[in-house]
């Protein structure tokens, strides 16, 4: 292989490279917060905690979404077996997303934001995001339409991204009431991460498993339906666990409790599915490390999102743990396991295909996987100990907030140490990314985007 299959893969590469930069920045802001929790807040005048926090979470959201977009620019042409509808539009879309993200990030340092958790991007930029995402959806939608090859994997991916775009809109409605504000903010945040993003996750994992395990597409896609079906069965009404305490009726305690308890099932399905398909595969793809990240994603998403989510989602527990570091404990492993590792799997799979280099044989690949995972599990442990202590001292014994924070600050030393380990793992991953170099050249004579010479 010495030429690029699709021009849009270069765009995908640009998205993936952007992900690595944004992730690095995300980690930097994470350290700023970790040190601040230990009392080392020397940056307070320039980067107060709320700036670091908004930067940390929004960088996460942007790099994950950027990774999904890069994955779509990779997968959709491959599934439709044709070039992306407009390569130029794809580049414009990438560039404008980067501009919006950088503008938002800088704005956070100058008190330009909306103080609404996870949706801090100021309203004018929201409109740009909408235009940007419409351009993206148009591009991949037209590609599928023109390709006339409607695979379940491609359609699920499109449906997930389309639904994610639609669900962004309720977050842009202005409410005077904090209760309604919160109610519809969760339509975005919850229905993204415990709903339509899982559609994206299921689709990308399916694509990777089809490529890496050699299991028949029909079998993989059948289970894809079951898993995303379970996701919506539990996840839609599972939104109720955000409606326990915000001024909404009492029946949400029951609805949210019951359906949240079912949410781990979808993630368990995802875990069993990846493990079973990976074991079943007749073909041994050379890129073992991409399969490692895929299976790891399935398993860690169950542990982080499914199991640890369940650990504090029942109302009788949540009334004490809601709004404490216990949430941060669940949040870190959930996002890492389900969505960060998913992007790493996709990047790990796509890079050798794009660059023609087999850097997946490099020793650093497996070390990146294990070191980052051990680091993240240790971080989760540090948050757990700090969070449970906080719940007891503050919520049950009634100690003052700051006294409790003093008492748990030692666990943030543990957190920072674990985060250092995690950072080494990420550093190795990025190092391998750089080893791969830039994508191959397209062979010039590609008369139209027709199917001439498709290697099949």
């Amino acid at each position: 292989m010495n030429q690029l299959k699709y021009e849009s893969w270069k765009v995908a590469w640009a998205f993936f490279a952007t992900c690595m930069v944004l992730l690095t920045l995300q980690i930097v802001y994470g350290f700023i917060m970790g040190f601040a929790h230990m009392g080392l807040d020397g940056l307070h005048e320039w980067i107060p905690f709320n700036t670091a926090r908004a930067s940390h979470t929004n960088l996460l959201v942007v790099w994950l979404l950027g990774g999904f977009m890069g994955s779509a620019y990779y997968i959709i042409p491959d599934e439709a077996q044709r070039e992306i509808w407009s390569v130029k539009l794809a580049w414009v879309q990438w560039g404008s997303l980067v501009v919006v993200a950088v503008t938002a990030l800088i704005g956070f340092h100058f008190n330009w934001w909306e103080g609404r958790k996870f949706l801090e991007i100021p309203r004018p930029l929201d409109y740009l995001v909408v235009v940007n995402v419409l351009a993206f959806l148009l591009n991949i939608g037209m590609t599928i339409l023109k390709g006339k090859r409607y695979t379940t994997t491609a359609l699920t991916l499109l449906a997930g991204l389309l639904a994610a775009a639609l669900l962004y809109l309720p977050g842009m409605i202005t409410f005077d009431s904090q209760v309604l504000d919160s109610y519809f903010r969760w339509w975005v945040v919850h229905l993204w991460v415990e709903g339509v993003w899982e559609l994206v996750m299921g689709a990308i994992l399916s694509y990777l498993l089809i490529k890496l395990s050699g299991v028949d597409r029909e079998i993989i896609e059948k289970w894809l339906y079951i898993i995303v079906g379970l996701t919506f069965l539990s996840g839609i009404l599972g939104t109720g666990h955000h409606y326990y305490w915000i001024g909404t009726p009492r029946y949400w305690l029951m609805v949210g409790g019951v359906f949240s308890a079912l949410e781990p099932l979808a993630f368990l399905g995802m875990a069993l599915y990846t493990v079973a398909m990976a074991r079943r595969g007749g073909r041994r793809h050379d890129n073992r490390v991409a399969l490692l990240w895929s299976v790891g994603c399935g398993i860690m998403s169950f542990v982080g999102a499914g199991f640890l989510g369940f650990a504090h989602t029942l109302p009788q527990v949540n009334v004490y743990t809601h709004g404490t570091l216990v949430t941060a404990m669940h949040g870190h492993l959930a996002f890492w396991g389900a969505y960060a590792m998913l992007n790493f799997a996709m990047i790990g799979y796509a890079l050798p295909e794009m660059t023609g280099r087999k850097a997946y044989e490099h020793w650093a690949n497996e070390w990146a996987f294990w070191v980052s995972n051990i680091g993240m599990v240790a971080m989760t442990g540090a948050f757990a100990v700090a969070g449970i202590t906080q719940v007891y001292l503050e919520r049950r014994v009634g100690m003052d907030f700051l006294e409790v924070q003093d008492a748990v600050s030692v666990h943030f030393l543990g957190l920072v140490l674990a985060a250092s380990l995690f950072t080494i793992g990420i550093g190795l991953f990025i190092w391998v990314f750089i080893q791969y170099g830039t994508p191959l050249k397209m062979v010039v004579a590609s008369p139209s985007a027709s199917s001439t010479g498709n290697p099949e």
Partner: protein
Amino acid sequence: MLSKSQARLFFLIATVGFSGVFLWLTIDTMSQVGARSHVDQMNESVVRGKEIWERNNCMGCHTLLGEGAYYAPELTKVVDRRGKEWMRVFLKDPQAMYPGQRKMVQYDFTDAEIEDVIAFFEWIGRIDTNGFPREPDMAPPTAPVQVSAASSGDASPAVFGTICVACHSFRGKGGNVGPALDGVGDRYKADTLRTWLSDPQAVKPGTAMPQLNLSDDQLDELTRFLMASHATSGS
């Protein structure tokens, strides 16, 4: 074994069915939240308070209704917990209240903005939250901060119980940021104490004692109360 088309049917029914139920519950919820959150009491000041809350991303450190970040205290019941007097002083200069401890950004709020923020918190505090945040069930039996003046004849001024004891202890109760106030009447003259309370920086530049912006009446009352505290009378 399930076929692919049956699996697709399961997916479609689960998605459409539960989306329908969710929308129905949303409509019902919308019909109830007005009463549960006392929307009739949500005046312009409350709405302005919410704008200030959002404009400064307060949720980036605090939680409200349990939502936000975990760097600073949960504020749903903050008016009940601290009282408006305390909040007015605190919001003027947050770091003065907790010298050397975790910092809050100095926002330089105007008095009107502070009243809006407090009105917003007051409105939030009245929302029916199904029992969140729950009262600590393992708390020691005595109230931690409020000072009762029952033991001495003179009642402590309201401002003493809500503001001073946040940092100073008195008769064994209160904060430990500043020195204990027992016997303070032996250590100062009345007019020195009154000047100190009205403008700490003028007496001791660089002191951690915050500018409390008390009224003349409050200053008189507080000075009288503190001057009556003598070491011998304490125990």
